[in-house]
């Protein structure tokens, strides 16, 4: 019985001792993403891109070695927050980066910034953090969530497309996409259909769609939902009948699963693998060489995240205690981004171009690829920066 107590005590002491010792000579970055479950495919892409970025940097920033710690949020905000806590308190990281999901970001970011550490988000861009809850320690290398559907709204408005049928899953992101779309699209919307989160069968909704006979269809179906929807849309013969526009539905991760069902798809995005600038060509080329397929935008953003952090560390010459200096450096966005030149708005969200992308046939019978067709927005600001109190 005493043995049990001793074992228990030893275990507890061991846990405490197992924590790594504090070191001022390294740049420690915590990267939170989803590594388990079906969405782990996104986290994988982000991790691959982070590793590639660090390799390109020679695993050093301003001469200091970089230590990267990955955490899995399991798509749960409370787990994400615990992972962030662990990175801050146990590993004592200098930066926290990553985060795919808006709800996880809304739990993680205040935790990180509240602890006085810099947060470099590389995907989720909830409007709260771009607006009233903006924080000088929070930066994002992706976008504000609404910007992407806003671009689609603008394109369809300018193209004079009327009678649009809109579909999205019934959750916060779905509603945000629709709101962003309607901010710039002023034409007639035939119907707004919200489906159950995680729904697999869309036959009923497709029948309704056909009956309504719209001129165009705009959807937001991320992940597995998009794959199911696209297959069924295509097999229902609707591809030829109604042009399909979308955001965050067709990307380099889902194309291998839908193949020709994606052909002709039109999406808006701030980046594409075929964007011609040196940083992007190097990133995409090396990624393709190493992993046998093009990277996704999730990866591009994460790559940029590492480069942004590097630019900050270099600007203060490795003096990580000079946070003000690092913030000032990051605001300049003085690094070679995969999207080309961009600048930061007062709310630390990018002012950047948005393009219309089309899924076209790949080289010699391979999977379709996304290609830029035209620029929809040049230097687009998000719609929430005015609510942000920061001025600089």
């Amino acid at each position, binding site marked *: 019985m005493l043995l049990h107590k001793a074992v*228990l005590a030893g275990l507890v002491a061991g846990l405490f001792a197992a924590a790594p010792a504090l070191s001022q000579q390294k740049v420690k970055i915590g990267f939170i993403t989803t590594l388990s479950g079906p969405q782990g495919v996104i986290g994988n892409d982000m991790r691959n891109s982070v590793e590639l970025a660090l390799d390109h940097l020679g695993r050093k920033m301003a001469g200091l070695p970089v230590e990267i710690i990955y*955490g899995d949020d399991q798509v749960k905000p*409370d787990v994400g927050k615990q992972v962030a806590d662990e990175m801050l308190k146990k590993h004592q990281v200098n930066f926290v980066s990553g985060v795919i999901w808006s709800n996880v970001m809304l739990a993680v970011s205040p935790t990180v910034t509240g602890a006085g550490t810099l947060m470099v988000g590389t995907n989720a861009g909830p409007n709260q953090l771009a607006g009233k809850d903006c924080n000088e320690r929070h930066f994002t290398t992706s976008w504000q969530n609404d910007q992407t559907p806003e671009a689609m709204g603008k394109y369809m408005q300018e193209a004079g497309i009327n009678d649009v049928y809109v579909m999205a899953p019934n959750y916060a992101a779905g509603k945000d996409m629709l709101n962003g779309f309607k901010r710039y699209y002023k034409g007639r919307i035939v119907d707004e259909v919200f489906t159950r989160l995680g729904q697999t069968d869309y036959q009923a909704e497709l029948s309704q769609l056909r009956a309504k006979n719209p001129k165009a269809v705009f959807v937001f179906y991320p992940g597995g939902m998009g794959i199911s929807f696209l297959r069924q849309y295509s097999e229902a013969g609707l591809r030829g009948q109604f042009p399909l526009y979308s955001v965050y539905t067709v990307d380099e991760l889902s194309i291998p699963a839908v193949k020709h069902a994606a052909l002709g798809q039109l999406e808006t995005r701030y980046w594409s693998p075929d964007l011609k600038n040196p940083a992007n060509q190097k990133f995409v080329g090396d990624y393709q060489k190493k992993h046998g397929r093009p990277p996704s935008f999730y990866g591009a953003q994460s790559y940029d995240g590492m480069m942004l952090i590097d630019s900050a560390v270099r600007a203060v010459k490795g003096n990580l205690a000079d946070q003000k200096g690092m913030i000032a450096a990051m605001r300049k966005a003085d690094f070679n981004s995969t999207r080309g030149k961009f600048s930061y708005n007062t709310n630390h969200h990018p002012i950047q171009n948005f393009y219309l992308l089309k899924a076209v046939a790949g080289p010699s019978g391979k999977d379709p690829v996304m290609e830029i067709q035209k620029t929809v927005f040049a230097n687009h600001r998000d719609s929430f920066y005015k609510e942000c109190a920061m001025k600089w």
Partner: protein
Amino acid sequence: MKPSPRTLVLFAVLALLAAVPTLAAAFNQPFYLDLFRRIMIFAIAAASLNLILGYGGMVSFGHAAYLGIGAYAVGVLAHHGIHNGWLQWAVAIGGSALVALVIGAVSIRTSGIYFIMITLAFTQMLYYMGISIEEYGGDDGIRVAKLSQFEGLIDLANPTAFYYVVLALLAVVLLLVHRLVNSRFGMVIRAAKSNDARTRAIGFSPYPYRLAAFVIAGAICGLAGALLVNQTAYLTPEFMNWTRSGELMFMVILGGIGTTAGPLFGAAALLLLEDLLQGWSLLPKLVHNFWQFYLGIVLVLVVLFAKRGLAGLLRGSKDGADG
């Protein structure tokens, strides 16, 4: 009466938990304060589930619903500017009890597989409702900027103070459940679990007793929910996801069903195991990337071969519920 080995270990663990804040400060590892506090909150939830599942034999797959209701009670009131902790927690407990009454009234009429399914279905309904309510962020959730306020008494923003509050509540809950199952009320529940027909034959209708136990379990879990939302400082419908119910059930069985100490051992074991499998960088890539595989194997093995759980490794007291 000489306490059993199991009881002694339980007290030892509680004593160790009481020492965690001091140890954490000494080793400069404040993260462990948060980790163990989280473990204790889930231990409270697991203890409530153990009441109906371990002792009562009611396999409720919907227990996470009460975590959600307790959390929402606090979060929603805070969102509308009501920060009084007494009021928030009272609503959390009362609200959960009420919902448990409604769900229990319908579900307990069924048994076996039907009971499992219907409790699961109710939780799913609540989950989808939570996602749909935009006012409270839907599935984005909302931040709880100001924790439950207990004017002049305790400041939950102080991690150590909050820690001791949770520890005290855990001890109270464990004692409460222990007393309950050893009372006449508890006897009927346990009798009905082992032989429903015979219980009826001696004149007890299990239904009201089961319902009462279900409501009490819901209320306690609501308290855990209130604590959890303060711990996370964030409200999300994910608290009500059915897989979380599965996690709670695992804690109960891992720790040892039908024992007082089980829920605490189980919560600690599961959460520490998860943390270890994911975080320990010394583990090979193959384990890291697929840690749920190994978790699954551990769970299956425990169910098949170590049914009596961690608490079952220790000898329990002969008289009393542990056994």
